[in-house]
């Protein structure tokens, strides 16, 4: 049998180390040097990002760091790509508790950045990034706390339904569904030609939870959603309605069998794999999906030919704004005591030129105006258009509500998918987690 203490030891150890180092920290708050002192003294910036896998994303960040050092020879940048979960759940929290966090690091915005600001971890960059904020637009709000800017996004996009145009044609569906009634209709037609109408990676929880988020977006008013994000107030009945709508939708059996164990992405048996290889006709996913579909397809050319994208359909007669969309992005923030060069580097990352190069990697949609030309893929172009024309972009609810409520919410939604949870239990779980 297993003789494994590793997990326990690891948890205890990492938390201990964190506290020990935190105890030593606190003192010596260095004042940011005046503008004129920029680039005078050699500095080293450590940069943690989440493009850990070899590929265009990781290569591009390496190039960005090198280019910046070439422009400003006093700045050396040490880049480390760390897998998202590890970075977000363990490495970053532990590093922030210590007195030696990375200078610039991945920031997901929403509830998390709020907690980080409350703990005084982040540099207030409001005054330095006014131009960048103006150029990026409303997306920056996700990295704001109480009107102050603590980070900037480099990628932002709304989610929608990725679909197989050829299968739609075979099933006799003439136009992408614009309402849920039309979507249900499409599901029936796709079943008739024996393909999986919709693939969902419920095994990873969040791909399933995003269906509930969209029902909530349709059922709840923008004000209710704002209030929920800021105050963790989930009293509105629309959150129960979201679960009821989801349950009704699941009951029409639009998903592949045994979806509860299907992973979201990264291997051919995942929901991504089902769509990429023509076994499923639709998948609800964010703007990064093109890149992940590419990694699991058996026939890249066929995929490029059949893949399309349309926004999540509206629900007729619902309280929510039909042109509102769910979205999210990735950004970077500077640690409280990072040198002033950190902010300069952050500004460089979101400059239109660097953003255009980022868009050309095809790993996500850029946020800066002037970078749109970098988007070549037709599906990504339609997302970019939809993002610009969306009246309101609601951040992924699990990010907006913070990890604790987000995790409990996702677990309870998954229980609905598994057939042993109720719409009311989702709201109860969210409220209970908010008190934890």
């Amino acid at each position, binding site marked *: *049998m*297993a*003789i*494994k*203490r*590793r*997990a*326990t*030891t690891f*948890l*205890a*150890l990492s*938390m*201990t180390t*964190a*506290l020990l180092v*935190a105890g030593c920290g606190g003192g010596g708050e260095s004042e940011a040097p005046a503008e004129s002192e920029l680039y005078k003294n050699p500095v080293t910036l450590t940069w943690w990002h989440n493009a850990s896998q070899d590929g265009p994303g990781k290569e591009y960040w390496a190039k960005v760091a090198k280019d910046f050092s070439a422009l400003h020879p006093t700045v050396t940048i040490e880049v480390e790509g760390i897998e998202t*979960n590890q970075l977000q*759940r*363990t490495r970053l*929290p532990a590093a*922030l*508790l210590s007195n030696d966090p990375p200078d610039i690091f991945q920031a997901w915005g929403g509830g998390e950045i709020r*907690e*980080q600001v*409350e*703990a*005084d*971890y982040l540099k207030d960059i409001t005054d330095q990034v006014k131009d960048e904020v103006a150029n990026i637009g409303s997306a920056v709000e996700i990295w704001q706390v109480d009107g102050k800017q603590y980070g900037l996004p480099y990628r932002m996009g709304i989610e929608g339904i990725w679909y197989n145009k050829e299968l739609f044609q075979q099933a006799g569906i003439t136009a992408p569904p614009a309402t849920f009634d039309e979507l249900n209709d499409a599901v029936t037609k796709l079943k008739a030609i024996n393909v999986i109408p919709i693939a969902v990676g*419920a*095994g*990873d*929880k969040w791909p*399933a939870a995003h269906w509930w988020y969209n029902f909530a977006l349709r059922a709840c008013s923008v004000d209710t959603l704002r209030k929920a994000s800021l105050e963790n107030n989930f009293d509105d009945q629309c959150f129960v309605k979201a679960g009821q709508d989801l349950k009704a939708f699941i009951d029409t059996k639009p998903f592949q*069998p*045994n*979806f*509860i*164990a*299907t*992973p979201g992405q990264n291997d051919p*048996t995942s929901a991504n794999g089902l769509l990429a290889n023509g076994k499923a006709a639709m998948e609800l996913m964010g703007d990064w999906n093109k890149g992940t579909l590419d990694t699991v397809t058996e026939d890249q050319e066929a995929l490029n030919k059949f893949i399309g994208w349309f926004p999540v359909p509206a629900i007729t007669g619902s309280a929510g704004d039909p042109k509102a969309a769910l979205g999210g992005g990735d950004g970077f923030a500077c640690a409280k005591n990072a040198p002033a060069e950190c902010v300069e580097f952050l500004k460089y990352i979101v400059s239109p030129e660097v953003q255009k190069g980022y868009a050309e990697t095809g790993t996500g949609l850029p946020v800066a105006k002037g970078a749109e030309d970098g988007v070549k893929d037709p599906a990504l172009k339609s997302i970019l258009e939809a993002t610009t024309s969306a009246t309101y972009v609601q951040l992924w609810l699990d990010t907006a509500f*913070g*990890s*604790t409520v987000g*995790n*409990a919410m*996702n*677990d309870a939604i*998954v*229980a609905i*998918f*598994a057939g*042993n949870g109720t719409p009311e239990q989702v709201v109860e779980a969210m409220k209970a*987690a908010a008190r*934890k």
Partner: protein
Amino acid sequence: MTSTNPTLDLAGGASAPPAGPRPARRSSARAAETRRKWYEIIGLTTPAVIVYVMFVLVPMGFAFYYSLFRWRGVGPPTDYVGFDNYVLAFQDPIFLDALRNNAIIVFGSLLIQGPIALGVALLLNRNFRGRTLFRLLAFVPYVLAEVTVGIMWKLLLSDAGTVNAMLESLGLGSLVQAWLADLDVVIWTMLAVLTWKYVGFAIILLLAGLSNVPQELNEAAAIDGASWWQIQRHVTLPLLGPTIRIWMFLSMIGSLQVFDVIWVTSVPAVRSLGASATMATYMVDNGFFARLWGYGNAVAVILFAISFVAAVLFQRFLLRRDIEGAITRRAN
């Protein structure tokens, strides 16, 4: 050397002190000896003690300290809640599911692996062609990394995976299961994978134990007319007792703390529904993914307490004879 020894002895004898002060000298010599022994003990164990205290006891102390706080890992813990986190854990049905799953794995492992390992070990202890190869094969799964095993079984057991395909082609289509998706089946799937992975360890332990059974006893029994079965039952098995009990102990502790194979083989959704969660996966899911660091530490302390109590009870009642034997032998 031999030629000088007598000289030395003579010199020693010549300079031998009178009888009077001798006992005093001797007792002070004994004291010096005791002191030297203590210096030796302290000197040799200090490094290990420091490492043990720093990396085992201190973290355990901190884990307990943190477990008393409502703390999300941002900023130092300040919101003291006493034992609330412990109460919350035992009120969470998913944690109770995790406890049940751990119990299934503890007893399942003992009941399934024990007999298999014993049978295979007895078989492999006989002389036959290719014995080394079979020993090697039995041990291979144990040597493989947990993550490798997890991913391998995840692929084999997927809906369109090898296991179901084999069952189909053998005409056993009725046995086809959603091994990793059916919430009632998945814990038994996990038990099967764990058994496959760790039975080799039991076999190797028992083989080592068997090699310590004196051949003479077997021969004597054989001469007295005992059959092979009788020899195994009345000679080998009793002598194998200590090894079996040690294996049971290791298996039990390992089962209580099992993490990696389950983490890799079973998807997050199935874990969070309680179908395949164990205390350790529950701890990581809640501690890190739900960012409930105080709560996660409370679960860690519960896991430790259960393992500790189980270990102490096991030693007290089942390992006592083995340990006493060892101590008595040393005392003699």
